[in-house]
């Protein structure tokens, strides 16, 4: 059992849930306090000690089912099938009762495993198969080809053959002691069915063990978690959930920023001001004054591509930007596909989600249903809005630079960068694709202070933290 829990802990870690050693120990302590006949209690106890982020709960639930319930359910199903095949007037309780009475005055040697089969005790069978699995080293299974091998070893560990022999012997004794042929027939049929069920279950057990070690599975799992899910294939439901997530991440960044600021702000001890401040106390320094370090807040200008291939990156970036508004003196935002227009006012007049929806729909300033033309968009910005850029401004461009073979007009980007403090480009495509096909990213690249790939929330929040608010 302990080993099993450690394994499960590792599985959680592999799936990206952070579980510390101390928390693993807490889990053991918790299990000591509980009676674990109920699966839900067991599940809650492990959860409350090891999984502390609500976002990780769905991951936990799925892994728990895979790891703990998968085999239990499979075994139960097999057993039910075995009993189901017994004919309409078969009464298990009756048979077991008769058996118990007969066994009382008999001296038979039955292994735990044989007894568990005889009494159709699913929990006991599960326990024994798991133990046999450990003995057989099934944890080392690597691939499908080994399923047969490990299943056989588990059967050996269970001493499946031996138990079968014991059961046959028992039947002989029962016959000798006068049990009716009819009942013996039933018992024989039942034991046969149960042994088949166990054989199949052991195989299933081995398969599940392999599943748990299967890295593809974990990989898929990780991809599906929203943090790392690509912006390209979000469902509407995802977008809604993500909105919350962005919000949460923004709050987190905000508190990190405020801590950082507080630390920075507290400068050197300022004697002169301390004396002056404490004149009222007769010069006794009750209140100390520290010199304030003042750091200029940056201005932010965001140019968002809102064509459908990039709109989610733009959406979440802007949500970040506006959630972190107090980090900047001013945010101005522009949207473009081919034309470019300013949507700053939208964010003043509406609440953030409303503004986002409108902005991504062109915000009444541009026509969103055209083909992307970055050259044209930059040219409009250069012509009409260049004066808003100054040496304290960070300009962020979000787009895939897929220009439909139009003129890239890279010189406009050059002129913008010249005036700005820096220019950051966020591109949902990976650098390998930059400059290929109709991508003109390579033409803009020389004028970007930073250009980063960003395709999921994790990358985006890291970017926002490192590049924009630091």
């Amino acid at each position, binding site marked *: 059992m302990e080993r099993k829990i450690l394994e499960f802990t590792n599985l959680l870690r592999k799936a990206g849930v952070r579980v510390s050693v101390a*928390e693993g120990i*807490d889990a053991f302590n*918790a299990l000591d306090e509980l009676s674990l006949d109920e699966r839900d209690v067991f599940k*809650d106890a492990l959860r409350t000690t090891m999984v*502390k982020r609500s976002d990780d709960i769905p991951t936990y639930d799925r892994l728990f089912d895979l790891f703990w319930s998968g085999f239990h359910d499979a075994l139960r199903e097999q057993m039910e099938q075995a009993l189901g095949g017994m004919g309409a007037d078969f009464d298990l309780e009756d048979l077991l009762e008769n058996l118990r009475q007969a066994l009382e005055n008999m001296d038979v040697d039955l292994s735990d495993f044989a007894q568990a089969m005889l009494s159709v005790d699913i929990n006991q069978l599960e326990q024994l198969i798991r133990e046999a699995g450990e003995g057989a080293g099934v944890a080392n299974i690597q691939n499908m080809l080994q399923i047969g091998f490990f299943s056989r070893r588990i059967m050996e560990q269970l001493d499946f053959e031996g138990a079968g022999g014991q059961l046959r012997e028992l039947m002989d004794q029962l016959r000798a002691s006068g049990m009716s042929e009819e009942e013996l027939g039933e018992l024989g049929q039942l034991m046969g069915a149960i042994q088949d069920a166990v054989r199949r279950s052991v195989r299933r057990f081995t398969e599940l063990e392999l599943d748990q070690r299967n890295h593809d599975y974990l990989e898929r799992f990780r991809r599906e978690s929203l943090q790392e899910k690509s912006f390209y294939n979000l469902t509407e439901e995802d977008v809604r959930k993500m909105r919350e997530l962005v919000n949460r991440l923004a709050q*987190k960044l905000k508190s990190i920023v*405020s*801590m950082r600021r507080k630390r920075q702000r507290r400068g050197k001890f300022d004697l002169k001001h301390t004396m002056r401040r404490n004149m009222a106390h007769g010069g006794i320094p009750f209140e100390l004054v520290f010199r304030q370090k003042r750091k200029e807040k940056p201005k932010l200008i965001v140019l968002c591509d809102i064509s459908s291939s990039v709109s989610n990156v733009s959406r979440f970036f802007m949500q970040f930007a506006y959630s972190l508004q107090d980090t900047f003196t001013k945010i101005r935002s522009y949207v473009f596909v081919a034309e470019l227009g300013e949507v700053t006012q939208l964010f003043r007049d509406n609440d953030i*989600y409303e503004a986002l929806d409108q902005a991504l729909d062109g915000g009444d300033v541009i026509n969103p249903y055209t083909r992307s033309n970055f050259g044209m968009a930059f040219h409009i910005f250069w012509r009409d809005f260049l004066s808003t850029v100054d040496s304290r401004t960070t300009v962020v461009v979000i787009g895939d630079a897929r220009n439909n073979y139009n003129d890239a007009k890279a010189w406009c980007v050059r002129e913008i960068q010249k005036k700005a403090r820096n220019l950051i480009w966020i591109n949902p495509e990976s650098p390998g694709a930059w400059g290929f096909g109709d991508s003109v990213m390579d033409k803009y690249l020389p004028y970007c202070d930073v250009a980063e790939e960003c395709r999921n929330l994790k990358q985006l929040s890291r970017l926002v933290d490192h590049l924009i608010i630091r």
Partner: protein
Amino acid sequence: MKGLKMFDTVDDVEKRLLDQGYICGKNIATIVYLASKLKKPVLVEGPAGVGKTELAKVVAQALNQKLLRLQCYEGLDESKALYEWEYSKQLLYTQMLRDKIGEVIKGTTTLRDAAEKIGEQDDVFFSERFVVPRPLMTAITSEEPVLLLIDEVDKSDPEFEAFLLEVLSDFTVSIPEIGTIHAKHIPLVFLTSNDAREMTDALKRRCLHLYIDFPEEAQELEILRMKVPGIDDRLAQDLVELIQRIRGLDLKKAPSISETLDWARALMVLNADKLDEAMVSDTLNIILKHQGDIAKAQTELSKLLQQKAAAAKAEQPQQVDPPVEKKSILH
């Protein structure tokens, strides 16, 4: 006040909380039970109004322990949570003891000697007499076991969280002038959070984690029946069904349990015995605060009522009563 016996089993928790008027599932009961056994704080997270604060209160009642509540807010600092020196009292004593102080420094000639003499008496002025304990300190020094509720910890500053972390790990307080005080009993601690800010991993590692979500339909109905006795059965059912559906909409703020209860009470005052479109529309502002949310809920309400009407018709085609005019007394 003597505390009652600790919880025996998970079921015992469930039952004793129910006795206090709190309906909880196995999940909550298991974690409360573990907290009491392992002596670990519980971090309770979840949306607003799902009964996080209430949980701490009823656990205290069920154990007959005193509840000490520390309400967190931005700017809350150590001194307000732990202890403060009572300056005015110290000053007052200094005034009143002026003559005695004169005696103490009698015979000294230099300022330095006088200060030295007074310094020897320091501990008179910096003793427990002048300490005003705040909730954390009270919890630690209490003779009886108590329950400490650190409410809305997410509203506090990150610096305060770091301080809490220390207190929660060893339950001792050091007052430089007095010394270190160790807790007589490790109190049960509940921290609640609305997730305005994510708590650090360090804090989370020290706590058991409980996530309370909006209740399932059946459980919410149970809560409603218990908290609003006498409510018409059909009204209660329809109400909860509607609330559950409203929570499924894309809202700025989903209605909480307490809002469900308020709403039910309001509808009772209006003598409602079933959901009536006009009346519900007039009172939606009890459960929803944003205009956009109210509009969405209204659409959902019409849908639900239509479905219900259609279902009723299919079941038993009978004469429909003429609609009764009911005036809104709210607004």
